[in-house]
């Protein structure tokens, strides 16, 4: 409720600008999710900046007093630690016709919610969102990954580029056979 009090003190035109920005970011994410769920990976890759970093740290069950060490950091081990070139390699693999773990392809649905713009400096934005990536494979395999993403987005020609994506899963031991999909 503190938030709404804060909002009251913000001039109306600034509030409208914030809403427009929020709308633009959300729409960007919905379009991105649609690309992934329809396996249009080349177009998805084009959303990333050339210097992008795509990182999913390993999470560890730790005592409350050691929570600052819960996630690994860049330079330590991760589930994903990709540059744009490495992401392109994964897409090449998927398109090879011999990427057996994805043929028949997984069925996925990305649900993106709770979008919050944490920081902005005019041209770059730090955005946190929650996701639910639901996957089924073959006849009876079902995986649900829920977590949050923290992105750095850069404004480009009426849209955005993903400069940095950190993916935080709500799992420590990964409860699935592989991570053959994108988050």
């Amino acid at each position, binding site marked *: 409720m503190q938030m709404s009090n804060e909002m009251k003190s913000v001039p109306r035109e600034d509030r409208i600008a914030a809403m427009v920005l929020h709308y633009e970011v959300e729409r960007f994410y919905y379009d991105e999710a649609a690309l992934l769920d329809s396996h249009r990976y080349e177009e998805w890759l084009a959303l990333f900046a050339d210097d992008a970093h795509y990182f*999913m*740290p*390993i999470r*560890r*069950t*730790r*005592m409350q007093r*050691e929570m600052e*060490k819960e996630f*690994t950091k860049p*330079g*330590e*081990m*991760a*589930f*994903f*630690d*990709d540059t744009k*070139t*490495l992401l*392109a*390699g*994964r897409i*090449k*693999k*998927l398109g*090879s*016709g*011999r*990427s*057996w*773990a994805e043929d028949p392809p997984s069925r996925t649905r990305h649900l993106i919610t709770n979008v919050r713009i944490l920081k902005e400096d005019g041209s770059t934005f730090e955005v946190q969102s929650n996701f639910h990536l639901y996957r089924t494979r073959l006849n009876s395999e079902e995986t649900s990954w829920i977590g949050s993403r923290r992105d750095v987005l850069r404004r480009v020609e009426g849209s955005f580029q993903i400069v940095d994506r950190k993916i935080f899963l709500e799992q*420590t*031991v*990964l*409860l*699935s*056979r*592989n*991570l*053959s999909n994108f988050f």
Partner: protein
Amino acid sequence: MALANTEIDELVSLERGEVDRRIYTDPEIFELEMQRIFARSWLFLCHESQIPEPGDFFQSVMGRDNVLVVRQRDGSIKAMLNTCAHRGNAVCRAEEGNAKNFLCTYHGWSYGIDGRLNGVPGFKTFYDGQLDKSRHGLAQVAQVASYKGFVFGTHDASAPPLEEFLGATGRLGLDQIAARGDMVVVPGIQKFIIDCNWKIAVDNLFDWYHPQITHASAFQPGVMGTDTASAAEREKIDLSEVNMDSGAALDLPATGISGTKFDQVVVLGEYGHAIGGPTASSSGNSAFDTTWRSTAQARAALGPVGVEVAGHPNIFPTTWIAVSVQLSLRIPRDPGHTEIWWFTFVDRNLPRETRDFMVTIACRIFGPGGVLEQDDGENWAQATAQTRGIASRRMKHQLTMGLGRGKIIKEGGLSRIEGLTGEHGQLWTYHSWAQWMKGLSWDELKRVTTPGDFI
């Protein structure tokens, strides 16, 4: 257990190169594995570099026992069962960290980092002082020992010492990491669950027949993230009448781990340890650095025969040393589920850039997001699933490649087979598995897992 030794002998045939599919699915066999393999064998727990300071702990698994590996104040390492001596609750629920004590959150029994029972709520008021605290510490793992920083434990007090258990083959396996420098584990152990039997995940590490097919998509230039684009092309193996479901011929990249003229060496060791894969001089295009082998330190540690052995070692039963300078555990959870753990090693003195590259490649290749292991898991899960049908189960798994042509050369304390790709490493693992399953004495077990002249 109802399973007689004669029945166990029927499950694995070294002569025919056949394995009964029942061993991947039968709950009775799984229970027997827990008793006769995982409650007896030395098992890898963690690396010393993970727990440098007093109170540092790492929670590991021995069979289905959860074990706390803890650095002591005098620098030594203890491993103890993570179960309260009172009513059995876990005394630690974190995977790793640093602790001054382990407190049972059920009734408050409090243990030191050495496992000693220090505090008992109501010791005077409720127990009237009538509790011998010295008898109710955390249970210590029967034996704990370290080989060049690799910490192992066994539940069997009568097991031979670790170095004897490892033998020349097991030690050579660990030396493939240790001889590279001052090795430390990179923070972050990848852990994930594959719905497969643990033995399918283990035997695959000796299988150099599958990479060119299973990993065909990963061996295209630019996918692995290593310099495969410039790697020398190999002469392809014969693929006559190998066609895809579309009708198209299966076309494989000529780079990566594939092709003919790919010299292999398989080392067979006592207790079921083995190493299988390319020779050092033949693995030149597999994108992994082999220059470290030419240092004086490495040559001395590996020995004249071992320096040429560049394949994948497995310390029986479940510890795999991968060419990516990683160690992987295949932890059985039930007949159809295996938890995979990846430990990644780097030389403490590497320049930052080289270290970062090694970490990136380790994340890239293996683990659930790895461009190799994601396709492996699919095969292993499906191979496990197809052991459940009554009719499917009547078909034996075939390990006949090179069968009867494996002449064993004994030199430098190692028993090795030279040649092209074969299935001797897998067969040796299953033969040894069957011997372990009989519950033999340690002497007898060693005798029947000592390689002969041929396989």
